[in-house]
């Protein structure tokens, strides 16, 4: 096949997919702004996405904070910089690891289940049935999921991940590496800036939006039975993770590039 034709086809396919996604996102957002609102579904989603993700998010943060403290202590000791441990842990967790790891874990949990659920509803015609019952699937299914994830990521999950992550570092530092507890906490508090917290929460909200958008988009456009739903689920998780890592860089650039 002609080389140029291949490049053209790939570019065209990419633009088409981006355009479709853009239209989908725009439609979803326009439906969030206009009534009717389905508060019952919203609360249900906030519960499943936020509350039920807490255990796995908490555990991830705890062990990451602990491992981070060990690494920095050992690495720092090579040039007598062990005392920087609390600072590096808190900045590393709040700015970077808390939101990103939480985002990736929630992408695996939430994007996948959204894509599978909405995808199954699509291939079994439940979404069509919903339209014939004068209920817009964008309002009933998609808007509540996107709003719930975009709110729960910053205001529940990432806050918890940040706090528990720092605590993981604290436990190892004080319990194993001989740091003084009061001193550790005051150094942590002194070095943490409000800007770090804003950055953390901004990332969380952006990731939450992409996680739910990908889950809903791939589910809504899935076709062709069980296999199609499987493909949609995989695509949702992979694309959500890619968008998280990409947007993480962009948000970091906006907040901290000098």
């Amino acid at each position, binding site marked *: 096949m002609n080389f140029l034709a291949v490049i053209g086809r790939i570019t065209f396919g990419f633009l088409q997919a981006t355009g479709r996604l853009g239209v989908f996102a725009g439609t979803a957002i326009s439906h969030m702004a206009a009534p*009717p609102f389905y508060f019952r579904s919203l609360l249900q989603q906030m519960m499943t996405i936020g509350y039920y993700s807490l255990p796995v998010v908490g555990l991830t943060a705890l062990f990451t904070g602990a491992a981070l403290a060990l690494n920095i202590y050992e690495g720092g000791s090579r040039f007598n910089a062990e005392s920087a441990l609390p600072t590096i842990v808190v900045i590393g967790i709040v700015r970077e690891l808390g939101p990103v790891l939480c985002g990736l874990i929630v992408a695996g949990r939430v994007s996948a289940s959204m894509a599978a659920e909405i995808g199954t509803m699509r291939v*079994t015609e*439940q979404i*069509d049935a*919903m*339209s*014939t019952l*004068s*209920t817009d699937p964008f309002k009933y299914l998609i808007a509540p999921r996107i709003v719930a994830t975009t709110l729960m990521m910053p205001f529940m999950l990432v806050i918890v991940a940040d706090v528990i992550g720092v605590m993981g570092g604290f436990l190892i530092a004080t319990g194993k590496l001989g740091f003084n507890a009061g001193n550790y906490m005051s150094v942590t508090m002194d070095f943490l800036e409000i800007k770090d917290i804003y950055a953390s929460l901004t990332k969380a909200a952006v990731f939450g939006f992409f996680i739910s958008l990908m889950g809903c988009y791939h589910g809504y456009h899935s076709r062709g039975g069980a296999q199609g739903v499987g493909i949609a689920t995989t695509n949702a998780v992979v694309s959500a993770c890619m968008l998280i890592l990409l947007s993480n860089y962009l948000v970091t650039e906006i907040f901290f590039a000098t």
Partner: protein
Amino acid sequence: MTDTPKISLKGLHKQFGPKIVLDSIDLDIMPGESMVIIGGSGSGKSVTLKCILGLLHPQSGSIKVDGEETIGMGRKDRKRIQEKFGMLFQGAALFDSLPVWENVTFGLLAAGKAKRREAKEIAIENLRSVGLSPDVAHLSPAELSGGMQKRVGLARAIASKPEIIFFDEPTTGLDPIMADVINELIVERVKEMGVTALTITHDMSSVRKIADKVAMIYKGNIIWSGPRNDIDNSGNAYVEQFIHGRAEGPIQMEVLKA
């Protein structure tokens, strides 16, 4: 009866990619009439219904409901039109995350037209009208047999008191007795509510029971239509072959012979 057809299709054309499914469909359904469409598997019967409901967008042609052109309608008008319709899907398409009673009154609940307690009573009443006992109300759709699912689908389609009801293969996959029960229910509901009905079926006993008028679709066109009683002497070789279920005739099934 008035002269404006309840539904009027003119030159309806729909293709998926290069594959033409509906070539040019012309069909008028008068108010209070029960029209049955027959035709082979894959001839585009379900696609026709989905075009009328606005779930699929035809490439060209006109669809008028109560004399009002629905193609290219905005979101608001589309919703107003959709409220006139109820549909029983080929695979029932019940919402599997909701119990039966919430399925039946989904439209009412989502539109906020009924409180949950009232809705439950309405659901039980509708279930009774399709011959299901109140204890079914709390089961999940997955716990029902195929025939029961069809009946719940029927109850859901009539719960919002539509003016027009579509039945997509209401009896396929059911034993002859259950099929007859469903046919009776349809006739009874349609007569009692005075609605306009459009039914798709392969089942000649359904046709004889339900239809006022019959139309046959073949290769994306309506090739014959007329009153039910004319069907046995239609003088149309395609119709003859179909109603007698013969393999030999003008209709060639796309089956590869070894």
